[in-house]
């Protein structure tokens, strides 16, 4: 993997691009992405948020097992591989969240009776893992060139003991927090596609967190746009 620096620089590595969004604003950690870094999958991406890093690969549209075939749309399968050991119940529930978010944004009806497989390999978990997985998934789907109705991104908010909201928390901040909320936001209307929470919180805090996530999502969508533009400006 290419090493990268803090400022908004672009480095080229065998046709692949590694980009970094410098975090001048303290609300999100420094994040970066590399697309089509694997040769076998139809689309791949690795997404880095601070020290959290997830690698995603997409296969498909391909042939589907008869038992999983759906007559009017493609079957999407999401596999989450943890850094160590075998997938547990926690990974299953993450898979469900990522799969249903992708299903909402992908135009699956364009590929009936076929299968799409999205594999997410956790490389390192330092908090906000679910949001990083969502971002990696979206970048990989884009890289695979699958038709989508909108893009999506994940934002994690932690509410600490004093009631302050921290976006994109590290593992240590997550541990100290009173509540942890992860949202997936869509790119067209900035509405909430997915919500997964831990800990108890008030209605007001929920609304605040949604507003903060929607604001933070702008940055991530801008990053998606910039990175895709840079990538294709070289090839076209």
């Amino acid at each position: 993997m290419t090493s990268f620096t803090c400022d908004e620089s672009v480095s080229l590595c065998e046709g692949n691009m590694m980009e970094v969004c410098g975090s001048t604003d303290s609300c999100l950690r420094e994040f970066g992405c590399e697309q089509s870094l694997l040769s076998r999958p139809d689309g791949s991406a690795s997404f880095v948020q601070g020290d959290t890093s997830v690698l995603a690969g997409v296969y498909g549209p391909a042939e589907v097992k008869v038992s999983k075939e759906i007559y009017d749309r493609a079957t999407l399968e999401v596999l989450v591989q943890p850094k160590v050991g075998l997938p547990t119940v926690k990974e299953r529930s993450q898979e469900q969240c990522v799969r249903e978010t992708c299903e909402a944004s992908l135009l699956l009806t364009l590929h009936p009776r076929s299968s799409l497989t999205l594999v997410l390999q956790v490389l390192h978990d330092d908090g906000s893992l679910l949001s990083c997985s969502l971002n990696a998934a979206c970048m990989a789907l884009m890289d695979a060139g699958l038709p989508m109705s909108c893009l999506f991104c994940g934002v994690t908010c932690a509410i600490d003991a004093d009631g302050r909201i921290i976006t994109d928390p590290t593992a240590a901040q997550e541990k100290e927090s009173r509540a942890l909320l992860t949202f997936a936001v869509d790119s067209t209307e900035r509405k909430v596609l997915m919500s997964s929470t831990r800990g108890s919180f008030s209605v007001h805090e929920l609304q605040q967190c949604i507003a903060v996530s929607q604001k933070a999502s702008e940055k991530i969508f801008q990053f998606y746009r910039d990175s895709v533009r840079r990538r294709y400006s070289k090839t076209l």
Partner: protein
Amino acid sequence: MAAGFKTAEPLEYHRSFLKENCRSDGRELSEFRTTTLNIGSISTSDGSALVKIGNTTVICGIKAELANPTVESPGKGYMVPNVDLPPLCSSRFQAGPPGEQAQAASQFIVDVIESSEMIQTEDLCIERGKLCWVLYCDLMCLDYDGNVLDACIIALLAALKNTQLPEVKINTETCLPEVTSEKKHRLKIYRHPVGASFGIFDDSILIIDPTAEEEILLTAQLTVVTDEEGRLCSVHKPGGTSLSGEKLQECITRATTRQKEIQKLIDKVIESVKTAQ
């Protein structure tokens, strides 16, 4: 004729009802099915409850065992919830290891227990670092007709309220635990979380408490869990189409009233069990 239409065009069938602001089973859009509760259904378990929401049936049994506390938290006992969706309850589940839905439901129940702090795990500790209670909470769906998460939370809460643990003392001479089965005490439940599930039909119509037929056609599902103080314990939306802020607020308000209804129901059933004894 109607039966044929339902099988051939289920989406159109349900749409024709929703257009008239009602549902195929005669309910309004924001109406729950009848919820029935039976507490203490399994006499051999330490606590149990059976919940029916319409046809959906979930039974919960609680088994308490003595165990060693974990090294990370020597002053705490622990709970092991498990949701089982056997092939008996619906044709969509196969025999063998638990499927994704069952595993996701188990994880959801674990999250609700932790988030709501309904039980202080310190209460389950008998002697620090040596002995504690472990509560195996087994939730089994007997009939799957949608909205299994709500039923699971109610069953779990009612079963925990029904649980009685015998008194345990550690003999100072032999260092072995001695159980006094005659002296039993109830578990202290600190908070009462109750869930309310919603479905989004055709990206816009919000329905409450979906049946299995409706669940297949929904574009998104949402479960809101609140406690008696109106605090949110979980806002679980695993994906699907997006939801506006106003709709979400509507769901939260409905979930709060649902919590009050269910808590009243549980209290009433517990009271009737006490008078019967």
